[in-house]
């Protein structure tokens, strides 16, 4: 976990472009892939020592990583720390990225692993128990969800209620079922990529999704 919080003191020292700590040789075949996939080009720039590539990567994926992390840990502050951790890990292991795999899968693999590890921590279990939400009690850190499909006020209220119930039902799922559901339905990853992210086979992903869907149906039987 990150030692510094989001609001910690920040120095403005910058690394130079082409910093030797960041630089690494780029194979010719990777350059060809980079021409076809902007994500690969981004990672190759990062591997070559371009700090601005890290910023581009952060701006592109951090909003999705933050949302995923918040759905795992529930707390906004912890989700922000997890997001920091994810991008620091991306930087540290940038040379392990192979252009053959999709960057989004690689990013979500790191994010999912960190989120699952966070949920496994013993102190986390205690905290979850203490913060366990009672029936009818809203979690103060949950921001109101947008309802773009709402036309009237009544529809808007109903959509918001459904969204809140759905968020609560998703949060109650076991971690791996939650990860499979969010990565496949919300982040749009294929089952093969979901399996890679959470470390299981496609068949196991299907089983996780079946159980998650059944649980959501039970939780939302009054709405769906």
């Amino acid at each position, binding site marked *: 976990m990150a030692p510094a919080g*989001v609001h910690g003191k*920040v120095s403005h020292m910058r690394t130079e472009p082409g910093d030797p700590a960041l630089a690494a040789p780029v194979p010719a075949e990777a350059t060809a892939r980079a021409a076809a996939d902007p994500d690969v080009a981004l990672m190759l720039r990062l591997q070559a020592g371009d700090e601005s590539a*890290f910023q581009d990567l952060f701006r592109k994926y951090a*909003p999705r990583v*933050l949302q995923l992390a918040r759905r795992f840990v529930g707390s906004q502050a912890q989700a922000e720390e997890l997001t920091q951790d994810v991008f620091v890990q991306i930087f540290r292991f940038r040379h392990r990225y192979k252009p053959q795999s999709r960057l989004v899968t690689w990013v979500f693999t790191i994010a999912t692993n960190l989120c699952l590890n966070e949920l496994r921590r013993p102190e986390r279990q205690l905290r979850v128990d203490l913060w366990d939400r009672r029936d009818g009690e809203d979690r103060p850190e949950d921001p109101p*969800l947008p309802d773009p499909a709402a036309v009237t006020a009544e529809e808007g209220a109903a959509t918001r209620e459904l969204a809140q119930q759905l968020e609560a039902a998703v949060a109650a799922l076991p971690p791996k079922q939650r990860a499979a559901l969010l990565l496949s*339905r919300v982040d749009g990853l294929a089952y093969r990529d979901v399996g890679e992210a959470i470390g299981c086979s*496609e068949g196991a992903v*299907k089983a996780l999704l079946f159980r998650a*869907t059944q649980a959501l149906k039970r939780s939302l039987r009054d709405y769906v």
Partner: protein
Amino acid sequence: MRCRQAQRLMTPTVDNELEPRQQHALDQHLTACAACRQELAATRTLLEVVARLPAEMSLPPRLEEVTLHRMRDAARAERSERRPAPWWRSLSLPALTVAAVAVLALAVGLRQFDVVSTRSVDIPGRLAAKSGHQAASQHQVASEAARTRVARQEPRRASEPPKYPPAELASAPDLFMDLPILRHMEKLEHFDAIRTTTVDEAPDPSAGQQERSSG
């Protein structure tokens, strides 16, 4: 296909992740089973609702700055790891410990060798005088004399081993254990006793006889 099997295929079919063979089997079941058609519709609705959950979240203002700060810390750590370490850091702690112990043992061994060599100069005459009075102690005196000679001859023996054992050694087989390494270990073990004991303080062989006779 049974309804239970069909239900397991409903999420993959909504996600277009079913293999053609499975998709065909599910379609056949659905044409004949109204309950599963209704279940599939509910599953589709639920998954569409889940897919409408926001995938992104607006970033707090300082999150990018703080993350960049941590990234630069990691870059600095990488740079420091790549600096060449001093040569002595490449040696492991056990190797350094073994080397230190070896040097210490060598120093102690050399010092003890000097002490024994100096003492051995006076030992033969004193032992010979005692052997004239007590015939029973002849064997031990011979042993002491043998040890003395062994100590004197040590440099030569180290270079060329004798072709046959001397008479003193032949009469005392225990002296065949007089290997240099064992001798030095004994010195190390009884370092203080050896350093402070003189020949005059050596135990009188007759004392052993008196004890045996009284016992």
